[in-house]
C-alpha cells in the first residue's frame, strides 16, 4: 500500500484500445516459431507457473489431497520435472491443501469474495478473505464486482479491492476481472488499472466459470496495462490468465506474449501464472515427447 502515494489516474477517462490492432498483434506473435532447447525450456517454465486448480461444488478432501500429490510430483518417472507454482482451491479446502503441501514450497491459493459471482456484501467478502488467510492461504484470488463496474461505480470497485488487499495481510492478492463479463478491451484495460492502483499483486482474467475465459488478446491488453503501470509506479504486478488454456502450444504462445511485452523479468512464477487444470498434463506429455522423441499415451499421465 505504500505505493499508493502516487496520484491516481481518473478512471472515468477511457484509454482507447483498437480491437483489430490488438488481435493482429496477437496473431503476429503467434507466428513465433519456438523450437529445440527454447521449446523444452518454455515447457518447463510453463509447468512451473501452473496454479493447479480444482474449484468444483463436488470438491472433497480426498480430491484436494490427490491434487496436491500431483502438484508436488507431476510425473513419477521424471523427478527432475519442475513442481507447479500453487494449488488453487475454495477456502474450505485451504487447511487440507496447506497440510499436504507443507515444506514443498508450493503455495496455496484460495479463491474468496463469493467466488465466482462476487454477489455479496463487502462485509461478507472481507470475512471470507480473512478466513482464507487464517486457514493459511498464501494467495487470495478475489473477484471484482462486475455489476458495480459496469454501472460506472469505479470508486466502489477500487475501494473494495483496496480493503480486501488490507484484509489479505501478507498473503498475495490476485484480482480476477472476469473479462468475459466486462466484454470490451477498454473495460478490461480500465479494470486492470483500477485493480493495480488499488493494490493488486496479480491481475487475473477469469474465474473459469464464464465463457470466454482467458484469451490471448485479453491477456495482451492486461500485460500492456501492467507495463504502463510499471513505468508509472516502478511496481511489478503479476499476470494470471485462467480458464481455457489446455494445450502446451497455447502456453508457449502466452509466454511469447509476456516475453515481448514485459520482458524476461516477468517470465517467472513470481509474476506469471497459468490458472489451469488439464494444461499440466499436456505440458508433461510434450516435455516427455521432447526427451524421448515419441508421444506416450494419456494413460501414462496421472489424471488428478
Amino acid at each position, binding site marked *: 500500500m505504500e505505493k499508493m502515494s502516487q496520484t491516481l489516474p481518473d478512471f472515468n477517462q477511457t*484509454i*482507447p*484500445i*483498437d480491437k*483489430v*490492432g*490488438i488481435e*493482429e*498483434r496477437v496473431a503476429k506473435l503467434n*507466428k*513465433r*516459431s*519456438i*523450437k*529445440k*532447447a*527454447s*521449446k523444452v*525450456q*518454455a515447457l518447463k*517454465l510453463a509447468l512451473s507457473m501452473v496454479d493447479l486448480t480444482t474449484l468444483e461444488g463436488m470438491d472433497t478432501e480426498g480430491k484436494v489431497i490427490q491434487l496436491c500429490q500431483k502438484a508436488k510430483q507431476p510425473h513419477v518417472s521424471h523427478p527432475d520435472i519442475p513442481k507447479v507454482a500453487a494449488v488453487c482451491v475454495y477456502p474450505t479446502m485451504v487447511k487440507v491443501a496447506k497440510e499436504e503441501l507443507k515444506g514443498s514450497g508450493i503455495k496455496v491459493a484460495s479463491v474468496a469474495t463469493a467466488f465466482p459471482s462476487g454477489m455479496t456484501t463487502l462485509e461478507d467478502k472481507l470475512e471470507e478473505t480473512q478466513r482464507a488467510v487464517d486457514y493459511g492461504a498464501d494467495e487470495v484470488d478475489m473477484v471484482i464486482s462486475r455489476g458495480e463496474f459496469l454501472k460506472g461505480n469505479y470508486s466502489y470497485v477500487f475501494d473494495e479491492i483496496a480493503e480486501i488487499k488490507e484484509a489479505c495481510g501478507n498473503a498475495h492478492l490476485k484480482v480476477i476481472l472476469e473479462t468475459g463479463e466486462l466484454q470490451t478491451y477498454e473495460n478490461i484495460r480500465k479494470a486492470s488499472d483500477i485493480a493495480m492502483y488499488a493494490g493488486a499483486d496479480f491481475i487475473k482474467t477469469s474465474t473459469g466459470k464464464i465463457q470466454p475465459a482467458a484469451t490471448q488478446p485479453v491477456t495482451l491488453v492486461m500485460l*500492456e496495462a501492467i*507495463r504502463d503501470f*510499471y*513505468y508509472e509506479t*516502478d511496481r511489478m504486478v503479476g499476470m494470471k490468465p485462467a480458464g481455457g488454456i489446455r494445450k502446451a502450444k497455447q502456453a508457449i504462445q502466452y*509466454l511469447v506474449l509476456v*516475453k*515481448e511485452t*514485459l*520482458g*524476461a*523479468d516477468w*517470465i517467472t512464477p513470481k509474476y506469471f501464472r497459468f490458472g489451469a487444470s488439464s494444461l499440466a498434463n499436456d505440458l508433461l506429455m510434450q516435455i516427455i515427447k521432447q526427451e524421448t522423441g515419441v508421444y506416450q499415451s494419456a494413460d501414462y499421465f496421472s489424471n488428478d
Partner: protein
Amino acid sequence: MSEKKQDIEEAPFKPSSPTSKLDFRSLWEYDDAPQSADHVEIKDKYGLFIGGKFVEPSKGRYFKTINPSNEEVLSEIAEATQQDVDDAVKAANKAYKKSWSSLSGKERGKYIFRIARLIQERAREFAIIESMDGGKPIRESRDVDIPLAAAHFFYYAGWADKLEYAFPNRTVEALGVAGQIIPWNFPLLMLAWKIAPALACGNTVVLKPAETTSLTALKFAELCQDAGLPEGVVNIVTGAGQTGSQIVNHPDIDKIAFTGSTEVGKIIMKSLAGTDKKYTLELGGKGPNIIFEDAPIDQAVEGIINAIFFNQGHVCCAGSRLLVQEGIADKIIQKLRDRMETLIVGDPLDKNTDIGAINSKQQYEKINEYLEIGVEEGADIFQSSTSIPDKGFYCKPTIFTNVGQSNRVVQEEIFGPVLTIQTFRTPEEGIEKANNTPYGLAGGVWTDKGSKIFKVGSKIRNGVVWANTYNQFDPTSPFGGYKESGMGREGGMHGLQPYVKLS
C-alpha cells in the same frame, strides 16, 4: 522535446537498452527456426524467357545474383541487350496478333486462374526464393508477398470476361504489347500487379524484373510454361537500367508500366513525351504517419513499427515520417524504443526474423549514407541494441528524433528501416507537415475519433490513407500516388483502365 528526451535517458535501465526499464534479452531466447530450402531448385544459369522458351542472350553476357543475407552467389542471370528486347517485343506482338487477342475473355481468364492456382501450389518454393534473392524475412514472403501475388491473379482472372461491365456502354479493346519494369522490393508481387491486369485485358507483356531480384520472375516464367500459356504472351527479359530503357523506348510497345524511383520515373516520362504510349508510374514516397493524442497508443506503436520496418523499410508507401502530437510524443518514443528492442534482425530464412537483409550492397551504402547525413544534420539517432550477422547487408532499426521539415532525412526517401519523428500541435499543423513534400503516395492517421479520421484523411494529399492501421493491401483496392509519387492507379477496377482502349 529534446529536454524531455533527457528524462527518458535518465530513467533506471535494464541491460538490453540504455533507455528501457524492461529487459527483453536474457533468460529465455528463441532458438533458430530456419525454413529449410533443400527442396528448392535454383539453376546455375538462367536465360531470357522469350516466345515461351528460355534462350541465350544474344551477346552471351550474364551477371551474378547474390543472396544479400550472406553475399553468396545464387545464380547467373542473362543480360538482355537491344537485340533481345527486339526479339521479346516481336514475340509478344506475334502472340498478341496470332493467339491472345482473338481468345475470348473467358478463355484468357482460364489461363490466369491456372497461373493463380499454380502460384498457390508452389507458394512455399516462391517464398523461399524470394527471401533468398531479396533478403526479406520468410514470414513476410510466406504470409504477404506470395499469397497477395496469387490473389491478384485470381482477382484479375475474374475480370477477363467481364470487361464490358467494368466499362459500361463502351467498347473495350486491348492495347497490344505492354512493357513492364518492376522494382526489387516486392519482386513477385509487383510482377503480379503488372501481368495480371495486362493479361486480363488481352495484352501481351515484356517484363523486366530488377537486376538484384530476377529469380522469382524466372521461376514464374517456368510456371507459365507449365500453365500452357500460349508462347510469347509473357516474355521476361532480365538486365539492368539499360535493358529497361530499351523497353521504354521501343517503338512497338504500346504501354509502359513502371514501378521504381521517382528519379527514373522522370527519365521515363521524358522519353515518353510526344509518343502515344500509355503509361502508369508508381514512384517513391515519404509517407506521413500521423498519431493524434487520442489514438489507441499501443496499437499505434505497432502500426508505426509495421509502417516503417515492414520489408526492411524497402516499401514505397512506408510510413517513414512519423508525426506525433506533442502531448504524447515522449510516451510514443519510449514505447517505440521498447518495441524496437524486440525486433529480431537476422537470417531472412529464419521464421522468427522480423527484419531481414538489405536488398543490395548499393542500397546498404545508400542507407548508411543517410544515417550519416542525419547525424550531421544534428538529429538524435537511436538504434535498437540487437546484434546483426557479420556477413551480409544488415541495418539495425533506426529512429531519428530532433528533426525538422528542412532536414534531408525528412525530405528524401531513404528506403530503409529508418524513421524520422517530428511533433505537431494542432490537426492543421499535422496536415500541413504531412503535405509538405513532393511525394504523395500513402500515409496513416491514428485517432479513436471517427470524424477526425475523415476530416484529416481527406486533406492529406496521398493516394492511400490508412486509418488506425498501415500497409494493408488487397487486389480489389486501387493504389497509386499524387504529385511525384506517380501517375495512374493499379489494383481494383481502376487497375484495368491503363490496359484498355475505350471507344
